[in-house]
């Protein structure tokens, strides 16, 4: 077997059935081996960024390893945004690139780029396979590494001659035993019992650890008031009575208020990103912190933890549940207080009753949430529409909400939806995108068509880079700079050019029918939703500001009026 065939053997061995790739010179030996392999489904995207983001969406939606493949040089550089996206959100991914033949490395050969050097900061680990003999071992190690502990992308760069060389080497890799930690659970439980106003703060780590069920059980059993990060949306389930929703820059008033007033933060699988915490000085000022995570380097990074516990979240959550089940927490006053905030400061699904009125983002997303089936997966892009989804769609499972949290990659949604659809052939998959984001990976419409994926596309078109416009309006004196997109293409015609049916709506009375039409259609379909350019996402915390200083529409309007009078 040659190096390329060993790659396919590793795929079989690890039940990797779907990979996303794009061929080229130095990776050709692998594409040649694929000709004889019918058990690996290779999905040809139309841009390597699409491949990486589709692999990412596949991994997020399925909990399995995402795999992407590209050639050297431009193929590898095109992957970079997608790999960085996976790195920032700790998505398990295997990246395979061809490299120029070993003898040509360092000669500025055709399509040579220093892939290893270029990608050091965006991978969990990377390899340059220097011989075919070491390739089987590298593959084993890389596949294990990408998925273990805190997951992340692992990149293998393989010179063409290594792909072609024959080897009988067997995969030899003994995974290191995780270093034993003595969880300070007893102290954590005592601290939790002492607290009068404890708050559960969970993030994307829950689903990364496949700990969704144990988390649910703990949340239910402890009845702790809870907040979630953008990536933790869905952790608590849509029926949880104690969930106050997302915290942070565009979080709910209820969530930010509870964080501000709590006396103990129980942080599980979250890294206290600045979009969530706002200005650190003002974040949970009265609270002690228990931090539980798979990655010890997150402890004390941004906020000191009184107790830090590293380990498998599943195991730890089960132990916590056991401890709480015997003697429930006596925090009824605090629960009641949080309930009140939830009623007054949660996200109100602003329904617009006026039939001829323009469509508003929040009302549209609320309607989508009510109409779409329970197993729907929403892959978002980045911008205002992404925040409306986070605020107004009721997610029951974290893997149903695919969003580029850490990197905030415009263009994520469409390829991620493709990946998610491959992972869940029978689920409804919807890409909710903006007019700006859509154009970043619009070429992937061709992938949807080619594989006849029933992905639904919803473009929330405000004819501008809305999120940037909003910040220019609020924080840059309304000096608009290069955010105008009023010369967008005709999105309906564009979809049709890819043989994807499409329709456009722009009035409230068309919303329900529009959504029902695309959902009922047996195949891919695009809904172009025209919304007002001026619409903003509320509330908002000024970047770098404290979460306590949330600005909402009424406050801004009052300030405006004052200014005008003055």
């Amino acid at each position: 077997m040659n190096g390329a065939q060993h790659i396919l053997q590793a795929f079989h061995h690890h039940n990797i059935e779907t990979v996303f790739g794009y061929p080229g010179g130095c990776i050709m030996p692998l594409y040649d081996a694929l000709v004889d392999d019918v058990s690996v489904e290779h999905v040809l995207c139309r841009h390597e960024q699409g491949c990486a983001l589709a692999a990412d969406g596949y991994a997020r939606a399925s909990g399995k390893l995402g795999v992407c493949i590209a050639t050297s040089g431009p193929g590898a550089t095109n992957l970079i945004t997608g790999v960085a996206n996976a790195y920032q959100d700790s998505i398990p991914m295997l990246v395979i690139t061809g490299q120029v033949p070993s003898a040509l490395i360092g000669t500025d050969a055709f399509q040579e780029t220093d892939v290893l050097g270029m990608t050091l900061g965006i991978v969990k680990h990377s390899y340059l396979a220097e011989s075919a003999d070491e390739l089987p071992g590298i593959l084993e190690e890389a596949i294990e590494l990408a998925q273990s502990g805190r997951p992340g992308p692992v990149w293998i760069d393989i010179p063409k001659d290594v792909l072609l060389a024959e080897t009988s080497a067997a995969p030899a890799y003994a995974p290191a035993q995780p270093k034993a930690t003595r969880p300070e659970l007893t102290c954590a439980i005592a601290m939790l019992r002492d607290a009068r106003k404890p708050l559960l703060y969970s993030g994307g780590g829950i689903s990364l650890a496949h700990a969704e069920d144990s988390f649910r059980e703990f949340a239910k059993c402890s009845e702790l008031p809870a907040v979630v990060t953008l990536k933790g949306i869905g952790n608590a389930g849509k029926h949880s009575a104690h969930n106050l929703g997302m915290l942070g820059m565009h979080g709910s008033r209820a969530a930010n208020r509870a964080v501000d007033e709590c006396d103990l933060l129980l942080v599980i699988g979250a890294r206290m990103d600045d979009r969530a915490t706002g200005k650190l000085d003002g974040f949970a000022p009265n609270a002690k912190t228990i931090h539980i995570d798979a990655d010890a380097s997150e402890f004390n990074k941004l906020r000191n933890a009184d107790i830090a516990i590293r380990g498998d979240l599943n195991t730890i959550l089960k132990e916590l549940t056991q401890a709480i089940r015997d003697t429930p927490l006596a925090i009824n006053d605090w629960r009641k207080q949080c309930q009140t905030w939830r009623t007054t400061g949660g996200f109100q699904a602003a329904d617009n009753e006026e039939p001829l009125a323009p469509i508003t983002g929040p009302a549209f997303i609320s309607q989508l949430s009510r109409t779409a089936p329970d197993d729907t997966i929403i892959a978002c892009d980045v911008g205002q529409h992404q925040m409306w989804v986070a605020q107004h769609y009721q997610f029951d499972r974290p893997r149903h909400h695919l969003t580029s949290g850490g990197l905030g990659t415009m263009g994520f949604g469409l390829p991620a939806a493709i990946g998610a659809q491959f992972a869940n052939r029978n689920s409804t998959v919807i890409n909710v995108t903006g007019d700006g984001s859509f154009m970043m990976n619009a070429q992937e419409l061709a992938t949807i068509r080619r594989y006849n994926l029933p992905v639904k596309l919803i473009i929330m078109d405000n004819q501008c880079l809305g999120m940037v416009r909003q910040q220019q309006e609020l924080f840059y004196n309304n000096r608009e700079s290069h955010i105008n997109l009023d010369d967008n293409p005709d999105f309906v015609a564009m979809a049709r050019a890819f043989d994807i049916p499409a329709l456009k709506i722009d009035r409230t009375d068309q919303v329900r029918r529009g959504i029902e039409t695309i959902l009922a259609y047996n195949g891919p379909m695009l809904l172009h939703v025209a919304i007002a350019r001026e619409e903003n996402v509320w509330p908002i915390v000024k970047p770098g500001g404290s979460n306590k200083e949330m600005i909402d529409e009424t406050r801004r309007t009052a300030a405006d009026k004052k200014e005008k009078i003055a």
Partner: protein
Amino acid sequence: MTTESNCETPSYDITCRMSHEAAALERLCQVVRVRGFRIAQMAVDSADGTLNIALTIQGKRPVAMLQSQLEKLHTVAEVKFAAPVVAAASRIA
């Protein structure tokens, strides 16, 4: 960066043992840099596929954060820190 800005910057001596793979040293240096430290001195020797690296680094951020990031690297077997010393210049000043 000016010498002045280094005046009060704490300095630390680290030893690190890691496997001698492609880009091993770059990986180490990248983490040191991106986590807010500068390398002031570096000595490396290699034996049996292992690199032994002695580093003097300077930086104002908590050094424990750097230690946990370095330990996280797959190829790093061990990181040891000597007690922190404040940069010589600041003692004179």
